């Protein structure tokens, strides 16, 4: 499924700094199938998250979001639960690549502290805007770099590469 980059709308789930991969994809659930693993996503800090998050909701977080392990189930669990995009002050490097590769948009959002849990957001990842309908505010976020837009619009690295390899 290709990621939508403009006019995304959803509620905000707000988290702080250094939300690590072990919170997103706990070690004890790592041998389980994705659907089961995803039910444990963030359970140690918000037991309601996995069952309450809706399709298209956003994660809004501070620095070091996704810090730690290279396990891409951290990003995959969020995508499986329907998260539309991650807006973080500073996403961790491997998490960032993993998420894009799986078709889940992640952008830098320096104004994360302007958002409160449950705020109704409209996000444009091409032009880099976050409209907060609840608070009637508008803030910049980093747009998705052009060369990664292709990957996201293809639905991730594998479908993107499939097209490229077939062309060769």
């Amino acid at each position, binding site marked *: 499924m290709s990621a939508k980059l403009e006019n995304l709308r959803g509620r905000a789930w707000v988290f702080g700094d250094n939300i690590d991969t072990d919170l997103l994809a706990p070690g004890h659930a790592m041998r389980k199938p994705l659907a089961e693993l995803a039910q444990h996503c963030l*359970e140690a800090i918000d037991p309601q998250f996995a069952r309450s998050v809706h399709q298209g909701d956003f994660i809004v977080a501070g620095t070091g979001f996704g810090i730690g392990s290279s396990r891409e189930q951290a990003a995959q669990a969020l995508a499986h639960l329907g998260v539309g995009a991650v807006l973080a002050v500073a996403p961790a490097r491997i998490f960032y690549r993993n998420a894009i590769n799986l078709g889940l948009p992640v952008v830098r959002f320096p104004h994360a502290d302007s958002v409160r849990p449950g705020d109704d957001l409209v996000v444009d990842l091409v032009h880099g805007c976050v409209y907060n309908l609840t608070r009637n505010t508008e803030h910049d976020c980093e747009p998705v770099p052009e060369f990664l837009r292709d990957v996201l619009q293809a639905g991730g690295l594998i479908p993107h590469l499939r097209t490229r390899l077939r062309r060769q």
Partner: protein
Amino acid sequence: MSAHTLAEKILMRASGAASVRAGEIVVAKVDLAMMHDSGGPRRVAPYLQQLEAKVWDPEKVVLVSDHYVPAVDPQSAAILSLTRRWAHENGITRFHDMQGICHVVLQEYAHLRPGMLVVGGDSHSPSGGAVGAFMVGIGATEMAGVLATGEIWLRVPETVRVSWTGQLAAGVCAKDMMLALCRDLGQNNDYKAIEYCGSAVTALPMAERFVLCNMSAELGAKTGMIAPDEKTLAEIRANGGDIADSALQWRSDENAAIERVVEFDAGRLAPQVAAPHSPGNSLAVDQVGRVRIDQAYIGACTGAKLTDLQMAAQVLRGKKVAPHVRLLVAPASLRTTQLAAADGTLATLTAAGAILLPTGCGACAGYGAGVLAEGEVCISSTARNFKGRMGHATSQVYLGSPFTVAASAVTGHVTDPRALLH
């Protein structure tokens, strides 16, 4: 001729560009790809099928089973079986099945050389920088892309130089240096290459240099590196690797663009302990206060190599583990176990009451034996103490050097090892 950093030089060679600068994106050819049983075949095989692609060069792949070893249930047994089958079907000859933790095995078998561009399907991949390679961690989808094409896009990182002057005191080691850095540099050094240098770094044995690069992951860095010297080449040769003296050319040029230089005095460094739930939550051991422990754990790539076991043995010689504490030791590799058995280190540890666990990643990431119950407190020589990583979400993990873990096992609470060293 313009000057370049070590990271830039390696990415220039691997991308074929005449010159690169920090911030640019390059598409580079990968010299070696390393995977393990958790993020490896079980995850990449379906992707390769979707791509109808084969491994671009089986000679350039190293596969290590270290996470689910030995199997404890049918699920982990199936993962290990799938890993073996995939290695065979894809002609992967450099397959290390239960011989140790991937990052340690890579160096023990001399798979790395200065100047190589290496990707690893594990976040502690910066470990490879200890020999002057540029090694970065990637996820499984990205690994499938590398296996299909032999290439990866990378942003050329800025280099931050961390210089440790002076010499470490007795009872203080590389783990203490990194726990201090996780606090002082913070954990959001995203996309940076950290280059370690200075007299205290030069003096470190290769296994300790490894710890600096390994825990660069905890700094949030893209990678950590140490320019090769005679010690580097001697280690590669001792491990059976063929390497010319010309490999010493892999170092930053004199006037290379270093983003910033940070200096620390190794002589003033005390043993460090990171309190729950972050490696950056560290302080000098004497500032921790009285913390009673249930478990002491010596394990993982960063904390259970031969040098680590020897540090613990130095503290434990002639002493006993406190009655209410369990001391668990999971050697980082088969070779570590063999050498520690031969030189008497294992005998010293077990005489003190240590329980030997299988070689592998073990409880570090909560996969193997030695996980914690509700509310339990552990001091560990591993690299991460994230909430719930090593067991129950309410368990508490303190990080310390093997010296500090061993000393704490003896007294039953978090303890400054310098008081117990002979």
